[in-house]
């Protein structure tokens, strides 16, 4: 793929395993080969091949209906592929593998929280669900980091969607998934929220996790990520590590968005 002779600065992937759950476990590597998914007879995603290595922070771009959400759902195990398979360290990821699901997370901004439980109870519930033991202090420190310390006792129903997103971030901070999928988070977050999210995602990547973020905020996603994947009509049209300068990306990207896309 690299054109010979041009000076290329490839963003180096450096990571060292630092989050607790990964100690003793070799960092998770996700391979996707000939993945396809059809709804009824319509192909939402066709013969997709990906190789996600630890430390990658992938920006998943593409127009509406390109298959971004389908890919996220497939990677998170919510839906099963029609053909092809997803392998975690060579092991096929299927619903009969609960322990593999413990290593995957899907950050849906204001979803996946119980409205009638308080913020703290939500965190307790999900951390007990994913892990045996739960240290109360870690809950408080997570809430502290996302700035919800004083709202710990409030019901989630009374929180604003921005605060719900912060609570989801706190949740995944606690659960430390090795593959974190993020579905268009920028819609609800304010300035400090976005900084908080991006620091968290960067921290995850430097700790050897894989982050795949689907978004329409191209400029933001580009700053954050070290790899870009573009989908259109269910097919992979671009998959390259970030580099300066990046002509290939401009051409691939301009195909489906009017020039100067947001």
């Amino acid at each position, binding site marked *: 793929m690299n054109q010979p002779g041009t000076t290329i600065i490839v963003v180096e992937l450096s990571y060292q395993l630092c989050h607790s759950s990964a100690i003793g476990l070799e960092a998770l590597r996700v391979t996707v080969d000939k993945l396809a998914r059809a709804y009824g007879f319509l192909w939402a995603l066709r013969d997709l091949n990906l190789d996600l290595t630890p430390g990658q922070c992938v920006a998943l771009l593409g127009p509406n209906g390109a298959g971004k959400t389908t890919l996220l759902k497939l990677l998170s195990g919510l839906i099963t592929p029609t053909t092809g398979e997803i392998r975690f360290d060579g092991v096929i990821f299927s619903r009969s593998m609960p322990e593999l699901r413990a290593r995957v997370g899907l950050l849906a901004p204001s979803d996946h929280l119980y409205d009638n439980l308080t913020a703290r*109870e939500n965190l307790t519930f999900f951390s007990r669900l994913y892990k045996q033991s739960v240290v109360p202090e870690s809950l408080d420190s997570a809430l502290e980091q996302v700035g919800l310390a004083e709202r710990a006792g409030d019901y989630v129903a009374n929180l604003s969607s921005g605060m719900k997103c912060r609570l989801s971030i706190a949740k995944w901070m606690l659960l430390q998934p090795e593959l974190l999928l993020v579905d268009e988070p920028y819609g609800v977050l304010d300035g400090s929220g976005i900084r908080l999210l991006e620091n968290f995602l960067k921290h995850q990547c430097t700790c050897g996790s894989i982050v795949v973020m689907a978004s329409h905020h191209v400029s933001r996603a580009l700053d954050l990520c070290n790899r870009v994947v573009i989908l259109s009509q269910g097919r992979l049209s671009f998959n390259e590590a970030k580099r300066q300068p990046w002509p290939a990306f401009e051409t691939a990207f301009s195909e489906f968005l009017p020039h100067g896309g947001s």
Partner: protein
Amino acid sequence: MTLLRQTGLMLWKDTLLELRRRESLLTMFFFGTLLLFVFNFAFDLAPDKIAGMAPGLLWLAFLFTGTLGLAQLFQAERENHNLDALLLSPLDGGALFLAKAAFNLILMVLVEIVVIPLFWILFNLPAWNLLPQIFLVTLLGTVGFCVLGTLMSAITLRARARELLLPLVLFPLMIPVILATIRCMAEVLRTGQFGDQVAWLRLLLGFDVIFLTAGMLIFDWVIES
């Protein structure tokens, strides 16, 4: 055993939600007692005839009250796509099934503990000493109802008009339980012990075991999106 730990966790969450929302238990309880009054007006209950009709009336009340509980069972999971959150997590489908069935069972047993004595008082039935056997039969029947009911509630989760569809799909399948419990109760009321109706108890037990195992095995596919 992760299965029991996860079931316990889900039960803790459901009871906490129920204490906060207070929507299932009270409505089921008042609906049960309401039905007793309605039965009184609906049938001219001469004292001698009532003993024969008691099992049928009681079970009608429990069937409808239980259906209210079942309709609310996955309500918390319908908000905020929480069912997807559970599908994401390493939660075993069987644990979710057990927790939900047990939760509905607890609600129904609490209602039954109050409604049965109330029924005895309102219709001044004589046989107070028979209550333990009556409770045993009702418990076996309620377990069968909750097991199959949770399955049907999960199946109709994403259907339109699911409150109507749930009883339509569930009641025909419940006929063995309905027949068994009513026959057993009638026998207990008539002769004070089970006598040759014990076969019905074995049928009830068989029903509970079969659909408990079937539910545990199949539930992962039921909730899969």
